[in-house]
């Protein structure tokens, strides 16, 4: 697949625009939306509904996942199709804390979570201990996906498994995990998952102010996740990582160990996903094994592809666009969504391989079918022909086509 | 008659064929010679349409083939015997031969008689798997398969590479029959100078992607050999 038009360390102008765009998005999510929900009275024109706050919070969580995915895929060239798993693991960690926070207020009035009473369990399994503490749960939300990713990646990258084989194995990984979590005996609520949460850190989850606060924290987390990934890709390590994506054999010859760099990008990516999952579950109110289904991870890849791989900002854009469309379409035209998703995937691959951000640069427009169509239409209105992209010699243009 | 004119071919940024031109008359045999890396195999593949060319033309029997894909060129009557033989190891000798007849079109699936006249030993091996044949036998099968098309032109890329001397001699005889008796055009790439001298009538010498000398085999002087073929 073609690499992105902008790459790390490229002309600062593009990078500044990208950062500005993401800053605006984060400001909306972290500040504007929550404030417009909490301050103006309900019914006023400026009031943002509770539903919308939750939606924005969810979208921001997806954006974090997309940024993490772009780090692994767009920059390190690792097409992971199990990022849904890391997201879910982070979600489960937070879910376990939220379950324990219910205390004795559940249906069965027991200190054990409802589903365990239902299964006739007498005491808390050992792996649920500690999750009554928020700090522990957060640590686990980051550590568990990180460790899973690290171990899996350690063996996969050392064995030089790559390309489609790696992607298929990740699908198997997430599928196996899903089956494992479906089992009641595994102890995470089986196919119902964890739900009916009441409070987080003492604050009721039904209170709109709590939701607004969660949305705000998610916005801040998105900014932080983006900042971390941005710092990594603009560092020397980032250039090694993209070089490795482009010509791995050469990077190895130059004395860098590709396995170590892949493992780093992949594990960091998984940890960020875990964080996103932990932020997602309190806002959505449920976590179950369907988050681990193989198709969820494929959708993550589609968000990044639509937005534009290898640009970070493109990932944010793609996550917002695709999930925004999904939220709207599944309500307005419920049966249409899968067709739209499929068409999006095919369309982007054929017509706009660099994603939406490709349209923002002249060179990108020249290379994409959609861009050329747009250019052709606007040029038809102005008589003179559009000039070829500057800086690209004619022979090279032909080679590119 | 087979004609390739002024072929320019690029592999990435690398200019591999620079205005190479070769021709072969019906009923004659031409050998393209040169050291490794000069572009001999690339030239044959370009004539066959297996690699894209930037400019230049290929025609056979007056028919322009520059835009045709390899299967069309095969149907036009050009049989190709690639380097390394490339027969199908999992298929039997008979199946390998019948596959060739598919390119002919029409209903006849009969292997032309010529094949068995040239390679009588193949009749005794029809049920044998291609992969179980020796190198020399595989080479014979490869040429036979190209002949099942009833071609008017045969292109052979280093047919004697890795073959034992007795079979090499037989191959030379087969090639001679092809152009002297059957009046086909034969285009050959060969590194073995004595074999080329014995079998071919004309030569083209390649260096760095272009033709630097050509003529009748008799005029291939020691000086040319020293300059373009030896170290």
């Amino acid at each position, binding site marked *: 697949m073609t*690499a992105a038009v902008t*790459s790390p*360390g490229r002309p600062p102008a593009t990078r500044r625009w990208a950062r500005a765009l993401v800053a605006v998005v984060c400001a909306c999510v972290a500040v504007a939306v929550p404030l417009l929900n909490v301050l103006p009275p309900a019914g006023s024109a400026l009031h943002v509904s509770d539903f919308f706050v939750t939606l924005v919070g969810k979208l921001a969580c997806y954006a974090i996942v997309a940024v993490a995915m772009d780090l692994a895929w767009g920059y390190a060239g690792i097409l992971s199709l199990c990022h849904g798993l890391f997201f879910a693991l982070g979600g489960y960690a937070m879910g376990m804390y939220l379950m324990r926070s219910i205390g004795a207020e559940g249906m069965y009035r027991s200190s054990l979570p409802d589903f365990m009473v239902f299964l006739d369990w007498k005491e808390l399994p050992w792996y649920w201990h500690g999750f009554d503490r928020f700090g522990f749960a957060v640590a686990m939300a980051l550590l568990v996906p990180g460790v899973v990713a690290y171990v899996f990646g350690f063996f996969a990258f050392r064995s030089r498994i790559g390309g489609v084989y790696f992607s298929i194995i990740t699908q198997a990984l997430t599928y196996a995990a899903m089956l494992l979590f479906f089992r009641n005996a595994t102890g995470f609520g089986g196919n119902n998952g964890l739900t009916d949460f009441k409070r987080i850190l003492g604050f009721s989850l039904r209170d709109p102010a709590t939701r607004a606060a969660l949305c705000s924290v998610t916005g801040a987390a998105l900014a932080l996740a983006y900042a971390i990934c941005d710092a*990594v890709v603009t*560092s*020397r*390590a980032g*250039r*090694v990582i*993209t*070089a490795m994506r*482009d*010509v791995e*054999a*050469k990077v*190895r*010859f*130059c*004395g*860098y*160990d590709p396995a*170590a*760099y892949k493992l*780093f990008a992949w594990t960091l990516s998984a940890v960020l996903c875990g964080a996103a999952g932990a932020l997602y579950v309190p806002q959505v109110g449920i976590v179950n094994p369907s988050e681990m289904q193989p198709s969820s991870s494929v959708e993550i890849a589609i968000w990044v592809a639509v937005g534009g791989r290898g640009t970070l900002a493109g990932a944010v854009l793609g996550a917002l666009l695709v999930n925004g469309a999904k939220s709207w379409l599944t309500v307005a035209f419920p049966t249409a969504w899968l067709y739209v998703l499929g068409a999006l995937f095919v369309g982007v691959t054929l017509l706009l391989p660099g994603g939406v951000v490709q349209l923002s640069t002249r060179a990108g427009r020249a290379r994409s079918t959609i861009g050329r169509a747009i250019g052709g239409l606007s040029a038809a209105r102005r008589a003179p022909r559009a000039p070829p992209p500057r*800086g*690209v*010699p004619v022979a*090279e243009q032909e080679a590119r086509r | 008659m087979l004609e390739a004119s002024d072929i320019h071919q*690029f*592999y*990435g*940024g*690398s*200019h*591999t064929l620079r205005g190479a031109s070769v021709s072969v008359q019906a009923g004659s045999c031409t050998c393209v010679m040169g*050291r*490794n*890396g*000069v572009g001999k195999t690339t030239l044959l593949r370009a004539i066959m349409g297996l690699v894209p060319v930037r400019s230049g033309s290929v025609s056979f029997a007056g028919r322009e083939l520059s835009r045709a894909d390899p299967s069309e060129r095969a149907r036009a009557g050009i049989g190709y015997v690639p380097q390394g033989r490339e027969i199908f190891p999992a298929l039997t000798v008979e199946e390998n031969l019948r596959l060739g007849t598919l390119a002919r079109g029409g209903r006849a699936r009969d292997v032309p008689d010529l094949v068995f006249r040239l390679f009588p030993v193949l009749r005794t091996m029809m049920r044998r798997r291609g992969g179980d044949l020796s190198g020399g036998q595989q080479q014979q099968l490869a040429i036979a398969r190209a002949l099942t098309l009833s071609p008017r032109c045969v292109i052979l890329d280093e047919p004697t590479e890795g073959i034992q001397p007795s079979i090499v001699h037989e191959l030379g005889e087969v090639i001679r029959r092809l152009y002297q008796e059957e009046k086909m055009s034969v285009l050959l790439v060969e*590194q*073995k*100078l*004595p*074999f080329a001298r014995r079998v071919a009538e004309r030569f083209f010498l390649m*260096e*760095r*992607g272009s033709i630097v000398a050509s003529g009748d085999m008799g005029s291939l002087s020691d000086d040319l*050999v*020293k300059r373009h*073929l*030896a*170290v």
Partner: protein
Amino acid sequence: MTPVLAVDQVTVSFDGFRALDGLTLSLSQGELRCLVGPNGAGKTTLMDVITGKTRPASGTVRFDGRDITRLPEHVIAGLGVGRKFQRPTVFPEHTVHENLELMTRRDKGVLRTLFARTRSDERAAIERALELTGLGDERRRLAGLLAHGQKQWLEIGMLLVQQPKLLLVDEPVAGMTQEEIERTAEILASLAGDHTVVVVEHDMEFVRTIAQTVTVLHEGRVLAQGSMQDVQSDPRVVEVYLGA
């Protein structure tokens, strides 16, 4: 004096086929050696063994006296053995300068590259490489947009910034224009002395231009070795190239 490279009785078999058959050769410090031979003679396999891409079944390879036969590739690369492939493998989405910069890091671990800055001696090495390869004016250009010859020189430059002791160069002039070939000859000739260079080539005109000593390989062993004249007039070499 210890030879820079000592290959001793190296044998490599692929599925019964002997790519290298008890091959022995040695290189002295600062020489420019041309390695030639017909197809399948073992030239690429020899380079693979030296760089650690392929493990020999038997025999040893010593680099500056040290046994590197079983060391992993990136360790051998770190010791000062640089290889340039036939097709340019520069990093197309990085600029010329970034390509060179990627090569200078002494310590190539993840943590170091995350947090470090370019040292002044590394900057100097980059400048020297740009000067030697004549690519100073192109430093901001994306490597993917360079001409074929320029990509080859960039790749040589990328090897140079690592200050390798031994340079293995595989068919450097394939597909180049005449001017590019001449420039490449100049570059390689100027490298010998400070570095030891091995050039594998088929283009005999080019070899004639730059060769000091020529080694002819055939069927996995050294057939002949000497000056261009010696080798050209050796009847065994003639026979091998022209066939019996």
